[in-house]
């Protein structure tokens, strides 16, 4: 029962969505919309689970005097302040929550995003080694694209931007399409396995 019920729910939901995709009419639309609404409601309740998990994990660290307890305390304080301000004063423009989000969280998110530039540099330095013929081709292509995409590239050789464009739109695009088609078929095959109950590993079985 513990496995059969989820498999049955997956089958009914999957079949409903397939019918909604190929069918039309108020009954089909209403059924699929109801299913999507249920999904949103379940997602909303699940958010509570997430909040409970955060508090539980970090409270445990504080109470067991874990070496990271100060980070945990900081997290819980921020959690209460941010959540509390939203609940008490609302989350619209100009509220305390909005101010905290715009002035503290948003710049921190931008900082994390900008760290990517540093990580791309170190990853490229390490990864682009001409160890074989194929990696040498990859290395040359990467350098042409990098130079072709910046203003300096055209001073080195005026044809570089065109070469870079060709690499991006022909070989790179061909490979991406191949990966995409394979992935789409893989996703469809996995969906079919789930709907038919053949695939149960996501339930911890198999």
């Amino acid at each position, binding site marked *: 029962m513990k496995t059969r019920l989820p*498999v049955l729910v997956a*089958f009914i939901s999957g*079949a409903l*969505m*397939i*019918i909604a*995709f*190929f*069918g*039309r*009419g108020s009954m*089909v639309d209403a059924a699929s919309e109801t299913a999507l609404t249920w999904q949103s409601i*379940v*997602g909303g309740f*699940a958010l509570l*689970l*997430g*909040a409970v*998990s955060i508090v539980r*994990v970090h409270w*445990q660290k504080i109470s067991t005097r874990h070496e*990271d307890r100060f980070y945990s305390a900081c997290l819980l304080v921020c959690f209460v302040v941010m959540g509390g301000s939203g609940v008490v004063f609302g989350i619209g423009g100009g509220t305390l929550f909005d101010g905290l989000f715009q002035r503290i*969280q948003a710049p*921190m*998110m931008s900082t*994390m*995003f900008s760290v*990517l530039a540093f990580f*791309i540099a*170190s*990853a490229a330095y*390490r*990864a682009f080694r001409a160890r074989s013929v194929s990696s040498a081709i990859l290395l040359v292509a990467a350098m042409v694209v990098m130079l072709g995409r910046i203003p300096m590239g055209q001073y080195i050789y005026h044809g570089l931007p065109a070469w870079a464009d060709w690499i991006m739109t022909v070989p790179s695009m061909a490979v991406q*399409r191949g*990966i*995409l*088609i394979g*992935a*789409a*078929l*893989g*996703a*469809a*095959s*996995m*969906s*079919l*396995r*789930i*709907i*038919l*109950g*053949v*695939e149960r*590993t*996501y*339930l*911890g*079985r*198999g």
Partner: protein
Amino acid sequence: MNNESRLLGAMFLRMGQVRVDRMVSERMPRRPIVGACCNTPLRPGSDTAGSLWEVLIGAFTGFWMVCLGSSLPGLSTLPAASQFAGLFRVERTNALVLSLIFAGAVLWYITQARRGAKMYVRPIPGLSAVDEAVGRATEMGRPIVFIPGTGDLDEIQTIAGLSILGRVARVTARYATPLRVPVLYPLPMAAAQEIVREAYFDEGVEHLDPQTVQYVAGESFSYSARVGGMMLRERPAAAIYMGQFTAESLLIAEVGQSTGAIQIAGTASPDQLPFFIAACDYTLIGEELYAASAYLSGDPRMLGSLKGQDLMKVLIAAAVVVGTIAVSAGWNPGWLLTMFEAK
């Protein structure tokens, strides 16, 4: 429809004009439509999967026949057809036909596998390395980090990631290796907790530490900051990233690389693959992620579905070659373009 399926459809979009109405009237078989669904027998003693696919095929056939009935001359007078008139999106007939061919191929090979046919799947080094990674972590006495992507549970890549988690959790439970599963959304957290709990229970471990599967943040950069910090502090011996990833992929994988962890990644997000390939020891590319659960479980029925998928891939490749030759030669393969048009 998941994102990849939409993209596949979108890629073939606008390659021609649809004349579905003509196609339907010319190609649809004229046969009685009543009871197409009800006549499909349920085989006594068949297992759930067998029964379900028969029901599905029956439902599909019945639905298709009944809904299309209204479009066919002479059939629209039937009571069932008039009752359900116009219920089918005729403009999606090509998608339905392709879906049925695909589903038919997958189901055929699953049936063959159930009858004992041998299914060969080429070795996937990244998956073979999972056991090696767990062994390394056990020897070093350090944890393993498993990230089932940063998508929600309605993303099929997350499901694929969670399928692999079950196997990893089982092996870590067997060798008492600490496991860390930080997740970005609450629903995958609940699913991951259940999967790990089941795996631990199967291996005789009854207590699940709340630190094992934990919700971290609802935003990807906050998430990557937290996961990066955790990796730097706990210095895991192995890190496994399986699922959908966005810009945080390199932020996490590069930190993992700096800690010296053996890293295995798998994603079907083409824009994140280069980052994983640069920062990880093994990377599963695209469909390999979806094949992973079948590969790891060794279940012939699941392996059979991969074979069906390959058949469809051959058909699409053939269509691409024929289409390219036809267009290059100046012919207009309208029927081929129509077949792959999404509406």
